[in-house]
């Protein structure tokens, strides 16, 4: 209880002292500890009140290869964003399920999207970017986007894959994905009948 009285007293004194020490205009900006230490004459920016956010983030791939990117770029993935913001400042952020070449592609996508001008339409760039990838890399990138919880990359890759298959015949889709048909002939025939309108033309 005595201690509390002391601190109250210290604060009262500091209030009187403020005028003499030329503190920043808003006393709330100055930490209480600084008052007590008597360092209140320094101008302290608001940002330092929060845990420091690094300018760069280090990502670590499956093979433990490291990638350094700007914070803004990495924040397009919820996993990366949370790893930085939850205060533990996990650095490097381990992305054990993503291989280096795939992570590099994800980073390229995020960079282009962060650098985009206000209202710039990136659909053509996205299509060209994904169109350049092999089928295997495209699927791995989609899975990585899902794992890293990157909505923009995930929506983009899934839409791209959907657009590839939307006009394919059933047999072509099976070939494309290496899927074996597990319907009996009878079942398949019935499905085509039930959805006949979808098969027209």
């Amino acid at each position, binding site marked *: 209880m005595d201690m509390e009285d002391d601190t109250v007293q210290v604060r009262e004194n500091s209030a009187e002292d403020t005028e003499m020490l030329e503190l920043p205009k808003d006393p709330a900006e100055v930490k209480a500890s600084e008052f007590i230490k008597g360092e209140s004459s320094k101008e302290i920016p608001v940002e330092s009140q929060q845990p420091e956010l690094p300018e760069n983030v280090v990502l670590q791939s499956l093979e433990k290869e490291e990638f350094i990117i700007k914070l803004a770029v990495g924040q397009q993935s919820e996993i990366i964003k949370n790893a930085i913001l939850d205060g533990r400042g996990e650095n490097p952020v381990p992305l054990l399920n993503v291989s280096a070449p795939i992570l590099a592609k994800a980073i390229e996508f995020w960079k282009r999207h962060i650098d985009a001008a206000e209202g710039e339409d990136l659909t053509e760039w996205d299509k060209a970017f994904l169109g350049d990838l092999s089928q*295997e890399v495209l699927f791995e990138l989609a899975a990585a986007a899902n794992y890293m919880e990157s909505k923009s990359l995930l929506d983009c890759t899934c839409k791209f*894959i959907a657009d590839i298959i939307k006009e*394919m015949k*059933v047999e072509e889709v099976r070939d494309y994905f290496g899927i074996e048909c597990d319907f009996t002939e009878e079942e398949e025939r019935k499905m085509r009948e039930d959805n006949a309108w979808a098969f027209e033309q």
Partner: protein
Amino acid sequence: MSSSLMEQNMNVVGVNPRKRKASEEPHTNLTFSLDELNQDLLERVLSKLPASSFFRLRSVCRRWNSVANSATFQFACSQIPFRDPWFLMVDQYLDQSIVFDTTEGNWKNLSHPMFLQQSHGCKPIPVASSGGLICYHASSNDLAICNPITGVRRELPPIGEASESQTLHAIAMHSSQKDDDPTTYKVVMIFGEFSNLAFRVFDSKKNMWEEEVMLVQKGEKSTQSDGVGYESTVYFLSKTGDIVATNMQKSPFKQYSSVRLNENGDDVICFLTCSGTIMACNLAEKTFFEYPRLLPAYFEYSIDVVESKGEMLVVVLSEFLETASLRVWRFSNEERSWQQVAAMPPSMSHELYKKKVDINCVCHRDMIFICVCSDDFSSYVMCNLVTNQWMELPKCYMNGKAKEFMSAFCFEPRVEAVV
């Protein structure tokens, strides 16, 4: 936080080359196929397919087929804000569900035999549509809601004697999907004499019809200002000295059609009256208002009302100066007058001159769909309001015969829309 998420997703990515199965088919040289993907990713890809592609590709394998019934897949579908519209066509026979698919640019026959055969003698007519649902009306004011893609249908409870006995003017529907909640919808019926209009709302969440609400007229009565009225017919003296009557018999296929607008958050239902004027009923303010006529009655030949992004547009086919013109108008509240939004190329509209056609229109965002028909002529035109491009659709042939449609209802093909 992040480490536990990583644990959950450990089985996701087949990046490790050691995942290749020994028994793998020779033609599959992927270390990784979508088939191995987690369910979430498969559902996301499938949710982005257009409806007919999805229904076709359900035959790929059992896993793909079962996706249709997955709640998470339906949620993924509901997150897609807009889908290309389909137009459900209405003809005099009412025995098939033929749609025009704007994604593939072709006609499809969606017939769901179970539904159509159940109709107790009187065939249900579509009267309203919203989102992925269509509202049908059978003889005694019984309504049913249907998802044309899945064929699932639900009959609404009867509205009750008191309302049934009154003159029904319009039926409108609005459906919406919010977050995790399944589709909800409201159906509005407007009835009564023009001195005493009222409405009732069916709320799917409550599964019941709400109490009747009276509407009060707003603004001066302007209908009879340029002619003498008798019941629903208005007579005019035309410039050439003829007496012209506007007795707009609304065809049974458009009898109750209306559009739902959003005026600063208020629900406003607009419909055409028999004398060709437009009535707007503000359900929130409980008032109704009659718009001034676009053109003097003897100029108008056929008129219809559509809704585009919450705003009302009027499509008018008129004949003068030895030709026909088809234009789209918007009412400007600031100027209290009609402003032209789009016009059909004169060479196209000239074909309609003296054909005595009726136009029936619907709109989905920026796309207007117009059915132009008379006893011996039918044509379907689409107009893109943004680019002012007009396009005539190919004719629809079923069993070798060209189908003749009177009107259309617009909906989005949505697997996830629940009745």
